[in-house]
């Protein structure tokens, strides 16, 4: 299997994997970064969202072989200690129920807010539409994104 050097959360990480291996499984199985979740495998649910060069990206549909120059951020690297404004807002609003989809929700929200500092409610709902929460904590996700936007302003 070929070797790849990836820039993940500011560190160079070396992995051996088939070229078509999704980043999701490299993170989870090879690098023990299990915060990025498996939900559907076809980029439909958003549980596996990471940032690639700052853009919210579905890691289940991103092959490891195309990432040699990319800067990858996972939930583990969003902040040192859970202090990113989106993480703080998630805690303040007590968003999670089961919690499984929430790292993907947080990664989508943080990439969105980095681009849009003062989003309208409609923009928030559109930005978060791609991430499924099966417990349907949607009201709180929406509220937490608003709170995070204020924190980041």
């Amino acid at each position, binding site marked *: 299997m070929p070797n790849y050097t990836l820039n993940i959360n500011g560190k160079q990480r070396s992995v051996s994997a088939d070229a078509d291996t999704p980043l999701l499984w490299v993170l989870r199985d090879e690098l023990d970064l299990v915060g990025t979740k498996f939900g559907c495998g076809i980029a439909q649910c958003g549980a596996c969202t990471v940032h690639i060069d700052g853009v919210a990206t579905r890691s289940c549909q991103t092959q490891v072989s195309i990432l040699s120059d990319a800067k990858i951020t996972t939930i583990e690297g969003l902040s040192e200690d859970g202090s990113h404004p989106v993480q703080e807002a998630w805690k303040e609003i007590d968003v999670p129920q089961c919690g499984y*989809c929430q790292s993907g929700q947080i990664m989508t929200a943080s990439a969105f807010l980095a681009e849009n500092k003062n989003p309208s409610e409609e923009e928030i709902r559109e930005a978060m539409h791609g991430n499924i929460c099966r417990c349907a904590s*949607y009201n709180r996700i929406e509220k937490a994104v608003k709170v995070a936007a204020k924190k980041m302003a």
Partner: protein
Amino acid sequence: MKTKINTNLNRRNFLKTSLLASGGMLIGVNFLAACTSETKMPVDIANLNFNDFNAFIKISDEGYVTIYSPNPEIGQGVKTSMPMIIAEELDVEWDKVNVVQGKLDTKYYTRQVAGGSQSIRQGWDALRTTGASAKQMLINAAALKWGVDATNCTASKGVITNTNGDKLTYGDVVKEAAVLEVPEDVKLKDPKEYSIIGNDAVNVDIDKIITGKPLFGLDYKAEGMVYVSVLRPPSFGKKLKSFDASKAKQVNGVIDVVQFGEKLKAIESQASGFTRITDKIAVIATSTWAAMKGKKALIVEWENESKLESTEFHNKELDAILNSTKFNTRREDGNIKNAFAKADKVIERTYESPFLPHNTMEPMNFYADVKPDKIHLVGPTQTPAWAQGMIAAAYKMKPEQIHIEMTRMGGGFGRRLYNDFLLEAAEVSSIIQKPVKVVFSREDDMAAGTYRPAIKYRIKAGLKDGNVTAYHLKEAAMNGNMYGLIPNFFPAGCIPNYKVDTGNYKSNITTGAWRAPYTNFLAFAEQSFFSELAEELGKDHPTLILELLQNVKNTTDKRIEYSGQRMEDTIKLVTEKSNWGKTGDGVYQGFAAYYSHNTHVAEVADIVLKDGYPIIKKVTVAVDCGIVVNPTGAINQVQGGVIDGIGHAMYSDFSFNEGKPDYENFNKYRLIRMQETPKVEVHFVENDKSPTGLGEPGLPPAGGAIANAIHKALGKRLYKQPFVNDLKKSAVLG
């Protein structure tokens, strides 16, 4: 004022204490039954076992409290709310409490399940008594130290005070307290004194969740573990004929391919009805991806074993049941035949729902390490005790040789009550003699489900002199039928001539409990029907329900499950808070009220039309669940339940063609998403009644409330879930 407890827990044997070798006091608590006199308490934390106790509480010499909770956490919030109840009566500050998921061993342990919204309801008395007993022991220890009477001492926030003004902390007396008798007849707080219960406590796992720490079954790893992807028959009714694994074995990372299923067949009687008993193929690999890739490379021949059923066939069978006279009568009052004959008008409607997969966000998975003398299992299950029994039988071991650890679950909704995934993991591990992790893909998860059964209801009512005088509900279901309690829900007791009949078709498609089993669909059918009856009688829907409820208020019928008064209070609260009937132009409201899982709920949905399309803007909810233990968690449960109910009523469809599910992933199967969600405003009926659960009751009324609102907006009645199909057909939705 203090209330004296009056329960069958009022005896010392439901809790025991010990002095820990490392310092501090350990309390073992058993919520639902007494411990035997032989029950021993450990003296060190490393040896906690949950054989005889439901939970352990440690009070350290510094006064910190650790609660080891073995309760399965599936997102319903009990890992936070149950310890809150103990902390309240123990009278410590909530921020000094640490909650730890007990590494549990389910030896002899058969009492704890996540399901039915029952954890809080059943734990309420025991949890409070535990906290209060420990507090009294600490007070007694302080009183002995001071040489004063315990009645002259009080405790609050971890500090004991006497009438002389002396103070001792819990930590100061914990060693002495640990060796005292467990007091009987402890006094519980009046709800007015609560300082933890009724206040928001954030999810105890929040920091781990928001930083992506390993928490879930899928995150669990162990030394030497290999990954397994299982190929199961593609259709219900097919079985394995032969397979060629040569290509699969060439995939990088694939270690082996094995056929299995013998163990499952051996315990068929214990697993029947829930699990596909069949030969399967396991692809074993060094990574999840390699295992999944290897599975795709398998060349397999299947053969027919039993009938290949399609949705069309199911519909025909269900209709045939409804048109037949072959029913089990679940409840019968008065004489419906006479009442229908005398009625001014008889109305009959039929309601339909599809099978539904659970679709937990974390797909099914389990870790197993089967050794000749012990079995270690780790992962998400709602029923560890059942799993232990089946594994013990299959591997001819004693229960104590089987060690099960539960992880936080990425959703349950009933799917993880059934342990097919765990049985698969164990069998593959036993064959290859390695620790394994079985991981379902989403396609595996959706196509090898334990589905909510497809059901049809036919409801018939007789109206006479402006009243509902007869009510006959017939249920036709795939496999199971509604639970015995449900026929005693509303409108039982409200209508003099009343009958509930059920019949079923035995399908080879596996079915089981799905969040708010049966009522998740029944509530929609019933409350849509009552909306039609109200219209026919020229009455407002909630007014009609309130009128009917008067008939059950003073009932002496012990079978009646719900309370007329509590339902009335809930309905009145929701009509007030939603401005029922007083909204401006362009807002269309639908109402539904439903009692399930011991909780009364009423909902009003507000719909507006945008370009002729109905948009659900808001749902106002009133809930009577008694005392609200953790408001933030309670609101989250209700909001989630309502939106989940709307999503599945509105969008989620499922069907079979020749035994094969037509839906396998979220590209086709539709779950509700952010832009489709209304704001859900939750109000609680305030009272001091014992708390009841909230994981399920918010869901059932939601479908009825939106269907009734859509009727107001468009003049169209909906009879079939998901509504989106009918709305598309009539060009209401694109």
